[in-house]
């Protein structure tokens, strides 16, 4: 039991940190990355929670999460790369964005 507790605490701490990165930004891609990281950690958290409650059959939902996380990330990035959800708009290449996107040494 104690190992599940330790791992759960670790995963929750990791979620907190990733959430901080999602809030701090600074660039959009950082947010997508943080969102993706939170998704991965939620999958782990779900598995751990199943073991904590003694009902690990609920792993199905972790599987679904893995799928959804992937699909959401790909959809978001399609949105950035092509600025559209439909392939017909592919020719509209987005303008080069070039702000000051370095986040400083320690974010």
């Amino acid at each position, binding site marked *: 039991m104690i190992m599940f507790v330790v791992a759960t605490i670790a995963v929750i701490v990791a979620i907190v940190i990733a959430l901080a990165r999602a809030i701090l930004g600074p660039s959009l891609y950082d947010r997508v990355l943080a969102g993706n990281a939170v998704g991965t950690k939620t999958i782990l958290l779900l598995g751990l929670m199943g073991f904590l409650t003694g009902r690990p059959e609920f792993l199905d939902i972790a599987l679904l999460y893995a799928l959804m996380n992937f699909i959401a990330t790909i959809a978001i990035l399609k949105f950035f*790369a092509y600025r559209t959800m439909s392939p017909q708009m592919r020719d509209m290449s987005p303008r080069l964005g070039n702000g000051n996107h370095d986040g400083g040494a320690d974010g």
Partner: protein
Amino acid sequence: MDNVIHYASLFLFAAGSFFVITGALGLLRFPDFYTRMHASGVTDTLGADLILWGMILQADGDWLLIAKLLIIMLFLMFTSPVSTHSIAHAAWVGGLNPLLGKELKHHDIAPDRDETKAPVEMPGGEEQNKGGAA
């Protein structure tokens, strides 16, 4: 035998937790987007896998459970590089420049886009001053 499995999974959980925290810390500490991406990879690969292996050892030979855990692991193995690559690719074609070299200097090497066409807002920056407020 039971003891061996117990200690092995204890070790796997400890190591997995360490790597999950490491990945998250890297996500916070590293200086720019491209380097943070590597840190997030640590969580996705080794951290998640170690914890999942630990769970497999704890599954008490319930092979349906083991199969599900293995499928999750395999799925993470296949999807996480694809998501990481597509984030990196989107940032790259969106013109986000990486910090390179020991001095972590900006290098203006990201591919140029046609600036007259389809203007959109900056993919990067913008909320530079937001960090303190949030």
